[in-house]
């Protein structure tokens, strides 16, 4: 009597294992189809669609100017002694990690302190990290609208007869079609950034 029971158990175990294998294979196949980003996937987001800002030469720039390139967009201010240099140093390192593909990456630094970040300061500042970086600014109202469109928080905080700025530190990445795809966090490494930007450059 025990014999057929054992056989049944064996069949069940085998089919269970088979089901598990099918499941595992299925998962792997699903993963191959879509890119796995290390940043926050914002594909299909209804915000962060475009900007209209001015470069240090006085030209108006929008996302359409960077078609075919991956754009890494960061909001900050030049008087920032800590996070902004760290973000721009990382962006310069990302360009090195991308090697020959670096020419297809445009790093953009948007000031949330246009009052003090005059075009010459902005230009000198971004160039100090990498001459290929672009600084953009708008007037107070345009800055406010842009930050709102990108869900970027910034606030003037008085200190010592002067002021400093609180601000969001996410970096946004756009694919070569100009669509917002990712938000990368400040604590992520240059390797994480390069990994995700490479995927965007492959049109994933």
């Amino acid at each position: 009597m025990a014999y057929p029971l054992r056989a049944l158990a064996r069949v069940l175990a085998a089919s269970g294992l088979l089901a598990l294998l099918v499941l595992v294979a299925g998962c792997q196949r699903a993963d191959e189809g879509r890119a796995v980003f290390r940043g926050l996937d914002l594909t299909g987001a209804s915000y962060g669609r475009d900007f209209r800002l001015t470069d240090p030469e006085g030209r108006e720039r929008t996302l359409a100017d960077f078609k075919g390139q991956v754009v890494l967009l960061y909001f900050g201010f030049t008087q920032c002694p800590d996070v902004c240099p760290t973000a721009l140093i990382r962006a310069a390192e990302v360009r090195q990690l991308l090697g020959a593909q670096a020419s297809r990456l445009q790093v953009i630094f948007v000031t949330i302190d246009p009052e003090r970040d005059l075009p010459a300061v902005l230009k000198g500042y971004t160039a100090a990290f990498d001459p290929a970086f672009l600084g953009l600014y708008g007037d107070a109202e345009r800055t406010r609208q842009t930050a709102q469109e990108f869900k970027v928080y910034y606030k003037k905080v008085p200190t010592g007869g002067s002021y400093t700025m609180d601000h969001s530190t996410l970096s946004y990445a756009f694919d070569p079609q100009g669509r917002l795809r990712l938000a990368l966090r400040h604590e992520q490494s240059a390797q994480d950034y390069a990994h995700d930007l490479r995927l965007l450059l492959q049109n994933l």
Partner: protein
Amino acid sequence: MKRLTLSLAALMMAVAAQAQVSVKDAWVRATVPQQQATGAFMQLVSAKDAKLVEARSPVAGVVEIHEMAMVDQVMKMRAVPGLELPAGKMVELKPGGYHVMLMDLKGQVKDGDMVPLTLVVEGKDGKRQTLELKAPARPLNAAAQKDMSQGGHGAMKH
């Protein structure tokens, strides 16, 4: 002669202060022309419990001790009234934490400049000591050691 005595006294005071609090690896982030603020970073060790209560520099109109904090991906920078220096413990002012904020800069801080800094340290007994130092300016794109440890400064191709 009087001058010599005075400067000798100043030197001795500085030596005495250095015995209390030592400063290592002080540096200032260089700026671009017309940039009005930057930060100074360093490592402090105090022999006895003390507090860094003030910083001054002739290159800046306003100098404050700042703490940087990240709250929900938002960077906030605030002046703190002082920075505790527990006895024998290294306190690091570095990107991602504390810094001496130099505001209303009187001119550009160029890479390689030696920036004079005065630190005022207060002991538990309320006695204040001043430390004079010169911190070299490092390029604007100088990274803190810590930021590189995550990933791959060693693996980076130059």
